């Protein structure tokens, strides 16, 4: 297989073949952290023009950065780490990418082939450990295979439902020489994702939408990944169909379009959740009826016929029975639906929705000079023209950013939706900024999550990345505290951070970043203004916010979507 008698390839080491193949695939940035088993690989990388390694300060950070890079650019993020602890440190990042269908390729060093299985120094069965959270994985057993493995991994990562692929590299295989065959085709017998939808099903779906009185489109991350927001917008505009999105679907439909009903789910808008419950035809596109979206399943959208378009057949009919399943790529399926959509009479339905919007808007009430996080998000949005790439951490800060930024374009929000990984924000934002150096990247984070990967401030400073970090400091693990307030009689067990929080301004300074702090409402604008001006350095804008502000509306766990809390009661 690797030795081609008639057409011998150039002899190169495994490391050289690996790096050359990455270059051939158009990879220019690699995120990682070195160690014994990959010294040689990094040595080659460093000497190869056109590709650059970026040192993070923790392998988890490097992996989230690759994820952020992939979400922002659509190209796979590449990670190289050493064996054992280097490899295990990537696991949370891989699982995060897996849950949200993000293409990353993680190269892990491994002990020499002959020592595998002997509990050698820094050995870990990383393929076994990551098996449930990777789309696929490889163990390189021969240097001559590496080129083909890398091409396959790249193909698998970005096609079909994207996802992480791991390649384990024993150090002897990297060091040995093999033949490099750069032009071999990728052909995987068992892997042929369905792109084109079934035409009869598509006709039926269009008919169903055309005859609906109360149709609703529910768009998920798949629309952002598949770049099909134009098609969604066209279907909505032509058929006068309102659109709600999931957290990962934000930006797939511009929120300033009057047909937008905003985000759905646990912290979705009142009107999106009500529309979900009351619609008569629900078209789900690139989403998966996650429990954070559906609320109590047996009372979810009880009166609707359902259309489900997804590239992954295993997502369809997993949680919710559907009437018209369509397996295919959104970019291939939606244009056919666009052609068949007719202007429909949905006037009454839209009036009903507008009525809900007026009666139950997203709202918060100002309290004197206290800074409210919702206001901070609104101000940041306004001052970045709703055009920044917004990266969030996890918790209340994430939900406020999702609710109040007002997203306008695809791939604009980067957030750990499926796994809900605290510590995601800062490194993912770095990855996005590295992938999109001309864009403003804002990272909303909390005083808890920020500290989970705070070491990456160094990476930002070292690489002169002008990241805009908005730290919403409430002195609590706020989202957990909110649940304690609502469901555990305000017993704040293990959620008080304020007693132990560091001085974030000194910390920023210590790392060589800029620190700006707002303690009262009237400081907010100035801090944002100044923060946005800073070039070539990351800035930490810390807002001391009202400590017990909550995220509303809220669908309590296990409740139905129409059983929302709008305030504490």
């Amino acid at each position, binding site marked *: 297989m690797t030795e081609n008698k008639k057409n011998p390839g150039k002899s190169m080491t495994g490391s050289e073949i690996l790096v050359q193949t990455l270059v051939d695939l158009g990879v220019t940035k690699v995120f990682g952290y070195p160690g014994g088993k990959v010294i040689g690989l990094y040595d080659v990388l460093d000497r190869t023009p056109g590709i650059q390694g970026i040192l993070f300060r923790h392998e988890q950070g490097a992996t989230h950065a690759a994820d952020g890079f992939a979400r922002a650019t659509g190209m796979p993020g590449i990670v190289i780490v050493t064996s054992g602890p280097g490899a295990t440190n990537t696991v949370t990042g891989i699982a995060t990418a897996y849950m949200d269908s993000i293409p990353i390729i993680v190269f892990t060093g491994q002990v020499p082939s002959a020592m595998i299985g002997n509990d050698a120094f820094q050995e870990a069965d990383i*393929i*076994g450990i990551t*098996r*449930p959270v990777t*789309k*696929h*994985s*490889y*163990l390189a*057993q021969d240097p001559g295979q590496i080129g083909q493995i890398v091409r396959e991994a790249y193909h*698998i990562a970005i096609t079909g439902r994207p996802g992480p692929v791991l390649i384990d590299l024993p150090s002897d295989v990297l060091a040995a020489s093999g033949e490099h065959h750069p032009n071999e085709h990728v052909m*995987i*017998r*068992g*892997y042929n994702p369905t792109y084109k939808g079934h035409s009869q099903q598509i006709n039926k779906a269009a008919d169903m939408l055309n005859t609906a009185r109360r149709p609703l489109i529910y768009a998920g991350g798949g629309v952002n990944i598949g770049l099909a927001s134009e098609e969604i917008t066209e279907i909505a505009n032509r058929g006068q169909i309102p659109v709600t999105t999931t957290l990962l679907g934000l930006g797939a439909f511009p929120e300033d379009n009057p047909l937008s009903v905003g985000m759905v789910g646990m912290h979705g808008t009142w009107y999106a959740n009500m529309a979900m419950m009351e619609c008569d035809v629900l078209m789900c596109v690139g989403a998966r009826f996650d429990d954070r979206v559906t609320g109590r399943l047996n009372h979810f959208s009880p009166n609707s016929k359902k259309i489900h378009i997804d590239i*992954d*057949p*295993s997502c369809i*009919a*997993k949680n919710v029975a559907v009437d018209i399943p369509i397996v295919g790529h959104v970019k291939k399926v939606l244009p056919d639906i666009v052609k068949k959509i007719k202007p429909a009479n949905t006037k009454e339905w839209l009036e009903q929705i507008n009525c809900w919007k007026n009666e139950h808007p997203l709202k918060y009430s100002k309290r004197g000079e206290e800074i409210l996080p919702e206001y901070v998000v609104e101000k940041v949005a306004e001052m970045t023209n709703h055009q920044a790439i917004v990266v969030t951490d996890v918790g209340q800060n994430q939900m406020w950013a999702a609710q109040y930024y007002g997203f306008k374009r695809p791939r604009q929000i980067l957030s750990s939706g499926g796994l809900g990984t605290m510590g995601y924000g800062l490194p993912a934002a770095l990855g996005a900024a590295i992938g999109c150096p001309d864009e403003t990247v804002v990272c909303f984070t909390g005083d808890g999550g920020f500290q989970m990967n705070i070491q990456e401030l160094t990476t930002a400073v070292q690489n002169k990345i002008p990241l805009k970090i908005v730290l919403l400091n409430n002195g609590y693990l706020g989202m957990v505290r909110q649940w304690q307030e609502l469901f555990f009689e305000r017993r704040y067990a293990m959620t008080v951070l304020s007693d132990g929080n560091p001085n974030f301004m000194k910390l920023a300074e210590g790392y060589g970043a800029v620190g700006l702090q707002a303690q009262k409402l009237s400081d907010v604008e100035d801090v944002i203004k100044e923060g946005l001006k800073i070039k070539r350095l990351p800035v930490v804008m810390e807002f001391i916010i009202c400590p017990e502000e909550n995220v509303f509306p809220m669908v309590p766990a296990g409740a139905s979507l129409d059983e929302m809390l709008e305030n504490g009661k």
Partner: protein
Amino acid sequence: MRHILSVIFENKFNAIPRISGLFSGRGYNMNSMSFGEGEDPETTRATITSEGDDQIIEQIAKQLNKLVDVIKVVELTYEPFVERELALVKVQSSASTRAEIMQVADIFRAKIIDLSHKTITIEVTGKEDKVNAIIEMLQQFGIREIARTGIVALKREFQK
């Protein structure tokens, strides 16, 4: 209800753990799983029996299909199919029970493949319920050890 899935996959590194890991990771039930080289030497056929309603089995089939190494998944449950299982049963025996044990084996068309002063080892092939039945019948003599292959099955081509 019992379902039988026949799975053809490329026998690449780590393919079997990926298949079996799906069942533990996603909490799917699995009664038996057997592997062997398929008609094409680069492939392996797994025969998996599982309990569950149709919706769960459909999910299992879809998840199996999603694995990169898996080429084809066939659910045999609603098709005519032939199935066999092989079991080796080591039974305690003495001069006084030997004849009776051999008679039981005979009735089930099982073979005696090993004999000692204290044991008889019987090889039986058949559908799962037949294997269960002979084991049940042999229980009274005292069973020392059992090794079962799990079920293998293929679609039946002959149809009236």
